[in-house]
């Protein structure tokens, strides 16, 4: 449904997207995972024909992003990272506007947005600019869907959104996927990556890996331990100085310690005992997506 071949974009001296290639299957929920500056937005803009690539080519739903840009625009829905609706128009007027621009009506495609729009309907006369963050996000999604696109592009829809609204948003994406929509979504939140069928990890314009979430986890190839003790600050300091340590980072309630091969819980325990750490807990764990991403960032 989406094919990208060796696409690149440079702004001045900044190589925003460097030689990126990937394909997304029809009906897939595909995640672009990476921090600010990874090139996610630039890639999205090239795919929805708002930016011309410097090199490479891409097609969406069989249309070339340069040659067939007009035809392409009617089959994609795009929700930009920044709120881009008309703040002075009401909820309903915004939706009406986007439907009209694409030559359709709210009624014609109401079924597609019903589940989401019912939550907005009590506020349909409110100005879009006066909506809460979560509501704005829902309205933007409705506006991106109202012309019944084949492919949906969502650029960081959940950035700055609280954990509860993020979860609701991903539930909405799940039900859109069930209807057969192809969805490409970007996010800086690693926990959202596990909700995608496949993900691409991006960093400074390049793709580090493309795989299923569990495939990405399996890329991690070193011993990994979760470690905890009374004094987290000194625990980090001491573990980073340990001869067996490769990296040590805070990870929720535990520290995640990556070590050289052949290190056991006992080795770590005796090292920490020598340094008077109290209430030490150590256990070997499987890597998550975030562990894998951090590992790939450092070692390519």
């Amino acid at each position, binding site marked *: 449904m989406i094919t990208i071949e060796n696409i690149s974009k440079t702004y001045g001296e900044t190589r925003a997207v460097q030689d990126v290639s990937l394909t997304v299957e029809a009906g897939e929920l595909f995640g672009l995972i990476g921090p600010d500056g990874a090139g996610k937005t630039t890639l999205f803009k090239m795919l929805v024909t708002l930016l011309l690539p410097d090199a490479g080519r891409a097609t969406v739903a069989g249309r070339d992003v340069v040659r067939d840009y007009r035809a392409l625009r009617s089959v994609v829905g795009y929700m930009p990272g920044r709120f881009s609706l008309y703040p002075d128009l009401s909820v309903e007027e915004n939706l009406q506007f986007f439907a009209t621009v694409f030559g359709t009506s709210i009624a014609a495609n109401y079924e597609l947005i019903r589940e989401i729009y019912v939550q907005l309907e009590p506020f349909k006369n409110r100005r879009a600019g006066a909506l809460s963050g979560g509501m704005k996000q829902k309205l933007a999604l409705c506006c991106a869907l109202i012309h019944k696109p084949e492919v949906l592009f969502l650029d960081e829809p959940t950035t700055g959104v609280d*954990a509860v609204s993020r979860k609701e948003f991903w539930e909405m994406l799940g039900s859109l996927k069930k209807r057969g929509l192809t969805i490409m979504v970007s996010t800086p939140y690693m926990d959202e990556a596990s909700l995608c069928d496949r993900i691409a990890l991006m960093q400074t314009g390049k793709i580090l890996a493309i795989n299923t979430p569990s495939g990405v986890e399996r890329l991690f190839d070193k011993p990994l331990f979760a470690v905890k003790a009374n004094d*987290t600050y000194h625990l*980090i300091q001491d573990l980073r100085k340990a001869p067996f340590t490769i990296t040590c980072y805070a990870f929720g309630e535990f520290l995640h310690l990556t070590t050289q091969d052949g290190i056991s819980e006992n080795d770590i325990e005796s090292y920490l005992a020598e340094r008077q750490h109290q209430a030490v807990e150590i256990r070997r764990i499987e890597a998550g997506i975030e562990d894998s991403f951090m590992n790939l960032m450092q070692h390519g």
Partner: protein
Amino acid sequence: MDKAVTTNKLTKKFGDFVATNEITFEVAQGEIFGFLGANGAGKTTAMRMLCGLLKPTSGEATVAGYNVYTQSEQIKQRIGYMSQRFSLYEDLTVRENIRFYGGIYGLSRADLKTKSANIIQELGLGSVADTLVESLPLGWKQRLAFSVALIHDPKVVFLDEPTGGVDPITRRQFWDKIYEAAHNGTTIFVTTHYMDEAEYCHRVSIMVDGRIKALDTPAELKRAYGVNSMDGVFQILARGKSAL
């Protein structure tokens, strides 16, 4: 008094809307205090009152021992503040930003010189010290903003979603700095949407609809709600139903 922040039934109303509803809590000196809540729960309003930027409607609060009603200027001099949206001047250089904030807080010329050199060296910004802040990567800006927020050795530093958008390594390097500041006795008052970061706090409060619904250590909250992560606790409280 070794409490960095105290509030008693602190309330703010905007017309009929009660943004912050009788919140009561204390934060100890040197504590990392996580101030969580859904969008619109009233966190920003509460923080603005504690920073001396907004007069409460009722209730009491002190920050660094000063009263938020009558001593807001003393409070402003003794706190640091950083948010993702507003922190540094993009069209000033690294060195100019440091000098500007140092000047605002009344650091002497000699102090400022030492501080400036320390910050630049500690953050490894030597090669970009005279570069405009706008051209720095987000992660560098965030760490610089944090150092600048600490330039006058404040008793309490307020961090409003300080780590949004950065990569997971940079995010953790930022938390290393938070731990270090807390270890040196600075009280950290922080909001975040990353639930793993909630685990890094000594204690966490969760606001729902203007009220504090829960306040305890992460371990105690997880035990009380029978879940294994702070995300689980947050989903139960803020959504009002099970995370499953």
